[in-house]
């Protein structure tokens, strides 16, 4: 229909038919409305293409008949409630016989993946409902084992259940299964063939349905949660205690080292004093130093620190020399301060000689 030949009234009615309410079409508003008509027509074409069956009489508002049919079927399925447990009920009368011929054509044209996104959306919704029903029916055969998966229901069983409920469902099930195979999303149902590990590529291979989101009773959920925590918590506890132990150990080491250095300094101080003190011997027996520096009640505690301090001194302190001397008839390990005093004492020469006997 060439736009140039449209009168104002025709343009008006065309726009209204496409769902848009225009203002009056005047000389001024005409070009704008023509553009709008063109835009609306393009949108309309894009949306209607996959569903075009009878041409212009089909309105845009009518939804995918497969979806509509399935939704009504599902609604009726959900009504019986606790009866949906696998026993075949009296089949319900099919309410929409006139849609039946459409259905067969639809499936031929639109299997699974090629449907338009809107159709897919609808199907997804219906599938979700289907899955809910499956879940509730699977609930009975469910065992709260350690793996806790929904019991697998063979395809025939579920088919029977659904078919018994509503005769129209048969074809839809096939389409739905095909769609599940083709789609990559997680629809909550897993299709299993004879060998559970091999992915299914064709509807005929399916022998079992498995639900990925089983509806577990509360007790089972609690039990699972408890088990998970019970297995997990020892690890966590161990980890934390290890961490704490390492930290405290580090701290302890630091503390001991600090004490050792402190002790070393005090020993140096004492030994130095001994030199300057004329009436005492110029060296000090090690045990005597220890006993004068460390209080009696601490001696046992400080044993390790003392040992380290002694080692440190013998290795790192050059101004103190460790020697063996006989004091009062007993042999003692002693410390002698050998740093020469800077006043140029004669004793310095003497020590030099002592140090290098040649």
């Amino acid at each position, binding site marked *: 229909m060439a736009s140039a030949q449209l009168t104002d009234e025709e343009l008006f009615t065309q726009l209204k038919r496409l769902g848009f*309410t225009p*203002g009056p079409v005047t000389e001024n*508003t005409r070009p*704008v409305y023509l553009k*709008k008509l063109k835009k609306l027509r393009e949108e309309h074409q894009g949306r209607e293409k996959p569903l075009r069956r009878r041409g212009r009489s089909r309105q845009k508002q009518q939804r995918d008949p497969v979806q509509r049919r399935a939704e009504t079927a599902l609604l009726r399925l959900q009504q019986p409630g606790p009866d949906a447990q696998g026993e075949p009920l009296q089949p319900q009368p099919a309410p929409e016989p006139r849609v039946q011929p459409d259905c067969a054509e639809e499936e031929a044209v639109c299997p699974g993946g090629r449907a338009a996104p809107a159709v897919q959306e609808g199907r997804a919704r219906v599938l979700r409902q289907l899955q809910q029903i499956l879940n509730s029916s699977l609930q009975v055969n469910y065992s709260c084992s350690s793996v806790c998966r929904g019991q697998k229901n063979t395809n025939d069983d579920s088919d029977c259940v659904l078919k018994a409920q509503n005769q129209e469902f048969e074809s839809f099930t096939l389409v739905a299964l095909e769609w599940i195979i083709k789609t990559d999303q997680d629809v909550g149902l897993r299709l299993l063939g004879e060998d559970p590990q091999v992915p299914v590529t064709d509807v005929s291979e399916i022998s079992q349905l498995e639900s990925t989101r089983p509806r577990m009773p509360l007790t089972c959920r609690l039990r699972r949660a408890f088990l998970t925590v019970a297995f997990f918590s020892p690890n966590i506890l161990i980890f934390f205690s290890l961490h704490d132990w390492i930290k405290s150990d580090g701290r302890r080491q630091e503390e001991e080292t600090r004490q050792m250095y402190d002790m070393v300094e005090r020993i140096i101080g004492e030994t130095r004093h001994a030199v300057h003190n004329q009436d005492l011997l110029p060296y000090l027996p090690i045990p005597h130093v220890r006993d004068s520096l460390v209080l009696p009640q601490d001696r046992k505690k400080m044993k390790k620190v003392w040992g380290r301090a002694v080692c440190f001194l013998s290795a790192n302190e050059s101004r103190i020399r460790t020697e063996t001397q006989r004091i009062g008839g007993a042999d003692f390990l002693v410390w002698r301060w050998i740093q020469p005093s800077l006043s140029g004492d004669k004793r310095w020469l003497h020590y030099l000689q002592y140090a290098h006997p040649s």
Partner: protein
Amino acid sequence: MSTTSQKHRDFVGEPMGDKPVMALSGIGDTLGKKLEEQGFDKASVVLGQFLLLKKDTEMFTDWLKDATGANSRQAGSCAQCLKEWCDAFL
């Protein structure tokens, strides 16, 4: 909302009365002249066009762009200005 210009605020603040078409936000001298050539000599006539298009800013923007060669910013600004005036006074 983006900040409004002084022109916008001046227009939307009071009944338009007999204001010229250049008083509309987004319409300068060039665009104003083009509108006057087409018969839209007062702001109220442009308002008339806006109302004819059922106060749809998108359609009005399209129309203004077609009729005067305005760019999107100018047309959008004018549409917004008229819409707010209508909200306030109509």
